[in-house]
């Protein structure tokens, strides 16, 4: 599709003999929020790391905004913002310092970085604590800053790897509303989560991964319809139905 902002074709990645990602293909349309679901160890983070130019794929092709990740990673980096699964912040610095710093790294100059940092902090409801050290923040506040940093530099594509882990319903709601507002402005999002109702609420389409492969991909509605009446079935039912009940590592 001409409208596809992200095109992933037959992606493979092994760590030694272990196939973490084993032939993954999908597309994300411009302005779409695409959910990547799957049990622990399914290969979601590994996929995101390859898409975000950190990890090199063993084989397969990734195109983002028309640029090949393999051939033109630099151009891809100007388009993306990443909210990693683990916090990635300078704990000894203030939220503002963190955001301004990453803003500079993402191509913002001087005052523009500061202005955007303040705007994003406001978005996250943290403007009062802008000068506070991250180390003194609560877990939920750190999560919100982790996300806010990803927004610096006006990315066109956002990778959100479990952005809502360990935060209260208020903060979660705040994050949802922000994502929806950003989507309205044309932002494309790749979203991973273990909360199925989140995916149901936010994502236009979801892919369910297991064992390094995509085992189902459709709109939440269509996926639910396949296993029961869509209004009585949850995405969680779909998930358990697809991936089974055995525990993963």
């Amino acid at each position, binding site marked *: 599709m001409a409208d596809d902002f992200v095109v992933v074709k037959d992606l493979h990645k092994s760590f030694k003999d272990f196939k973490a990602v084993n032939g993954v293909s999908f597309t994300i349309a411009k302005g779409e929020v695409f959910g990547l679901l799957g049990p622990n160890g399914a290969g979601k983070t590994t996929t995101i790391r390859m898409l975000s130019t950190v990890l090199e794929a063993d084989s397969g092709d990734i195109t983002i905004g028309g640029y090949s990740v393999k051939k033109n990673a630099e151009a891809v980096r100007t388009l993306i913002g990443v909210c990693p699964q683990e916090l990635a*912040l300078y704990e000894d610095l203030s939220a503002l310092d963190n955001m301004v710093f990453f803003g500079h790294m*993402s191509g913002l100059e001087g005052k523009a970085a500061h202005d955007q940092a303040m705007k994003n902090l406001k978005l996250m409801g943290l403007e009062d604590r802008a000068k506070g050290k991250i180390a003194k923040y609560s877990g939920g506040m750190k999560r919100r800053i982790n996300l806010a940093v990803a927004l610096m530099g006006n990315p066109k594509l956002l990778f959100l790897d479990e952005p809502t882990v360990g935060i209260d319903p208020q903060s979660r709601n705040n994050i949802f509303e922000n994502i929806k507002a950003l989507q309205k402005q044309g932002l494309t999002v790749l979203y991973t989560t273990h909360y199925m109702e989140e995916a149901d609420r936010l994502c236009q389409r979801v892919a369910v991964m297991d064992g390094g492969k995509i085992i189902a991909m459709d709109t939440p509605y269509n996926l639910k319809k396949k296993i029961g009446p869509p209004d009585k079935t949850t995405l969680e039912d779909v998930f358990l139905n697809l991936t089974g009940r055995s525990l993963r590592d």
Partner: protein
Amino acid sequence: MKRALIITLNEVKLYLQDKGDLAFGLLLPILTFALMFGAFGGDTLFTADATIVNEDTGVYSQQLIQQIDDVDGVTVKLLSAEEADAKLDRSDILLALYISSDFSDTLMAGEPAQLTFKQRGNGGTGGQILASIIRGVAEQINQQFQVYNGVKVAVADYNIPDGTIQVVVLSVVEGEQQQPTVGVTEEITGGSSEFINQYLPGIITMYVLFSLSLSAMTIVEERKRGTLERLLTTRLSVGELFFGKFISIIARGFIQTLILLLLSYAVFQMFTPLSFLACLVVSIVFTAAAAAIGMIIASISRTESAANWIAIVVTMFMVMVGNTFFQSAPGSAMETISKFSINTYANEAYTALITQSGSLGDTWFQLVILMGVAVVGLIISRLIFRAVPGGNK
């Protein structure tokens, strides 16, 4: 390039945030310096108060006191006999000179006059030095009288007035004192110059090697924090990241050495303004070389402890074989091995500048080697760096 400088600024910011680290980094050179000062520093001249009890009213006691007071570093304190005795009793002073009331008259009569030292115990080291200074002065006066008396006897028949003899003798003796036939000159350079000059290069060298451990840790810290991966998804290139870190470490190492050198300059007067600047230049280049080696360690270390251990081993090697505190024998195997330590070159440069009063031009060879290590080290560190196993940046 701009982003590299922002990395540097961020590093500085982080450094300033960590109060403990900051205090350690800045206080350590001052502490080292205090130790150095304790070991090598102190007064360059003997100074003491000479306690004198003068019961004589004649001119010769005045002359004696004047001459004692004229000795550099000696200040005369006149006391009455009771005061002096009391002070001696309380050990406030350890030695006092007593000039008896017949001192001038006795001398005038051409007879030997007596001076008395009263002292507690051996009078203390200061007292002994003082006593010998006073003996020296008395000896001068004594000579003066002997010459005067000898001349007076010899020319007795020519009816020359005593006053004339005295003036001539005095002027000859004084002339002799000012331009002695056997001259003794003292050369005083700042502090106990020998030791400090030998040890300062070693101490600076130790400091600069902190930069090596510091830079060895920078990438691992970033990795552990998760910020390394995050940075890799931005426009920042690894080259910029490395260069920014490299500069921040040089800046930090430089500030430490600057403190050390400034204190040495102020207290030991070891430098001329020019040699001070030359030492700073050597320090920057040396720090750059150490930081570059640290960056190589940083790029191969996956964990903090790995970075730490490799840095320690490399530092130990550099110090041990690098002629840091002792010189390896010329032509020995040790001398050959020492060529592989950047310390060798830094120490050579410092020694040339500090001990041999050389100029920067005399250290060009060492500077070129150290600069080469810095540039090549930084390039190598970048080339062998892989952000993540199987990473592409």
